[in-house]
């Protein structure tokens, strides 16, 4: 059983398009996250949701909109894609806000042409 899953694994699209990445966790966790890992491999947090409520929003352009329909899902919608959005996006989850271990998904490699 996959604990944290993301779809799609690869996403290639043109500049200006709108795309979504989906994330699901079956760990029963309350908190979910989106991270971006750029070409230099730095992993940076973008958003965090706890019980469907936005907790962390790290100065991400408002073209990025997370949506949490329920505790087990956190999707990332990106409008008007730009070249600089090309990266690997990781979803993660943890038991709660103060629990230390985060469980990461396999990542979605987004390439904007």
């Amino acid at each position, binding site marked *: 059983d996959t604990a*944290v899953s993301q779809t799609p694994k690869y996403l290639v699209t043109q500049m200006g398009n709108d795309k979504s990445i989906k994330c699901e966790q079956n760990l029963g966790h309350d*908190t979910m996250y989106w991270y971006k890992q750029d070409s*230099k*491999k*730095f*992993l*940076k*947090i973008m958003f*965090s949701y706890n019980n469907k409520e936005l*907790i*962390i929003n790290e100065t991400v352009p408002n073209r990025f909109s997370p949506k949490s329909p329920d505790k087990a899902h956190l999707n990332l919608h990106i409008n008007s894609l730009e070249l600089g959005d090309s990266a690997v996006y*990781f979803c*993660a989850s*943890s038991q*709660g*806000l*103060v*629990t*230390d*271990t*985060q*469980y*990461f*998904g*396999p*990542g979605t490699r987004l390439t904007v042409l």
Partner: protein
Amino acid sequence: SQKIEQNSEALNIQEGKTATLTCNYTNYSPAYLQWYRQDPGRGPVFLLLIRENEKEKRKERLKVTFDTTLKQSLFHITASQPADSATYLCAPRVKAAGNKLTFGGGTRVLVKP
């Protein structure tokens, strides 16, 4: 500004030797520090957590130290094996930041048979 530094150069090591990785941080007072392992094309996997009041933590062949005076954590892999080849990320966490993890750039370890 807050900074986390890990050696960006790959660490090449012979099988059976001990690999030592460094994580230095500035303008931080982390309550915890975590280490994650990341394999190519995969999400990070949690390895160890050490708290500010702990000097050392061990898990099987892994050992982590945390020196809050030097603002440094060392990560050791003893009796290294080729399967230990991966990138290792450190992530200090400040209590006030909720569960926001900030990652270092990682150090790639290559264990040669």
